């Protein structure tokens, strides 16, 4: 009986050891849902790019989107940290506590701000300063190390050149600063709205 106990114990140790080794060597894929934001970059009228690209940058936490839009009147304004040379961009938040992820994500607005600065620096709006109204939304993921992945035009503006410029802004950006260490999700999903206004 003692031999059986020893055998059984050794078997358990072996199984746990193998499982731990496998677990350590192969990182378990994080399948948690990404944290989602909707952000819109508004191109200000008549200002040259890229410096003024961030002018009118609006961070809209929208989950659900429609609800966030409905609250657009309740926007609170804080000065942007980045925003290129002109630096007069506005940083707006809304939808406080609307979505589960949104409430937490508001703590990371400095990161989003930095991200917007980088992206708007890379955005070459072909219609900058023109009297056109265009809106395109690009969706993408930011991995924990800051890599931009899965860039897709989610909502087309109807103007192929404009859409391409928006997508290109992200593709050129490629690498952003790593996500804040205290950020709880595996990756950050962003819906970035590029808005062209006269």
């Amino acid at each position, binding site marked *: 009986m003692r031999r059986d*106990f020893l*055998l059984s114990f050794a078997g358990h140790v072996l199984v746990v050891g193998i499982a*731990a080794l496998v677990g350590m060597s192969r990182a378990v894929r994080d399948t948690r*849902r990404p944290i989602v934001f909707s952000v819109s970059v508004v191109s200000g009228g008549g200002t040259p790019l890229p410096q003024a690209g961030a002018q009118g940058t609006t961070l809209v936490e929208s989950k659900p989107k429609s609800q966030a839009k409905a609250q657009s009147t309740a926007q609170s304004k804080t000065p942007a940290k980045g925003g290129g040379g002109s630096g007069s961009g506005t940083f707006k938040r809304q939808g406080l506590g609307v979505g589960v*992820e949104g409430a*937490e994500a508001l703590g990371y607005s400095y990161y989003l701000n930095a991200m917007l600065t980088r992206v708007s620096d890379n955005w070459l709006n072909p219609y900058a300063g023109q009297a056109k109204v265009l809106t395109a939304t690009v969706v993408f993921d930011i991995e924990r190390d800051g890599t931009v992945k899965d860039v897709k035009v989610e909502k087309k503006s109807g103007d192929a050149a404009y859409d391409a410029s928006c997508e290109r802004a992200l593709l050129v950006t490629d690498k952003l600063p790593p996500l804040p260490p205290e950020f709880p999700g595996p990756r950050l999903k962003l819906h970035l709205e590029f808005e062209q206004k006269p």
Partner: protein
Amino acid sequence: MVPTTGASPGFLGPFIHAGPFALVDVIALVLMSVASWAIVLRKFRTLGRASRQTRQFLSTWGLRTRLGDYEQVAQRLRHSPLSSLLLAGVKEFNALRAEFGNSQAGPELLQHMIPNITEAMERAASREVAKIEGSLAFLSITTMVAPFMGLLGTVQGVLVTFMTLRGTQIPTLQTIAPGISDALITAVMGLVVAIPAALFYNYFVGKAHELEGDMERFESELTGIMRREIVSSQVEQRKGQ
């Protein structure tokens, strides 16, 4: 409750994050698992050998009508429960024959003493059954208790998780999920311990029933042989007269 960051927790993650209650639960379950697997290994060996030797015993015994070289058979296949049955029965038979066999009315007296032999064999059989079924009860207990222990750990973990949310304005999935996933590890452990125990318990009970059936059949067969021995010695005695 601080939500875990994106770093993958790996296999041991839930164990590391588990609270003291869950840890004690997991340790108890691991001990149960070690004990039940030890029993499984032992039973595999002993029951496997017993049923193998019983098959050999029955094929060797065949349609034997005399006791003959019973000692040799019993010695060779001593791990079969039939061997101890045979030895106990024959020992009783020989003792009775030594006592009454030489008298005039010996064979008739012996016929009356057949129940003594049967009882001796039954005693041996019940000892063998106890040996076969010994410690199977632990497997049965493991089957019943391990899932409940796992469930207890999980319920306690979920309770703690929700208690930490008290007073939180907006409980998010990120704050609840790690606590619950850590709590679930005890339920998983409970099932991992209970499922093999249930499987092997039923397998061994089946084997034990098979052996018990063999013992019962052999007992009646042996009683028949002994009756025959008595009658034939009676016939010889009459011939001698």
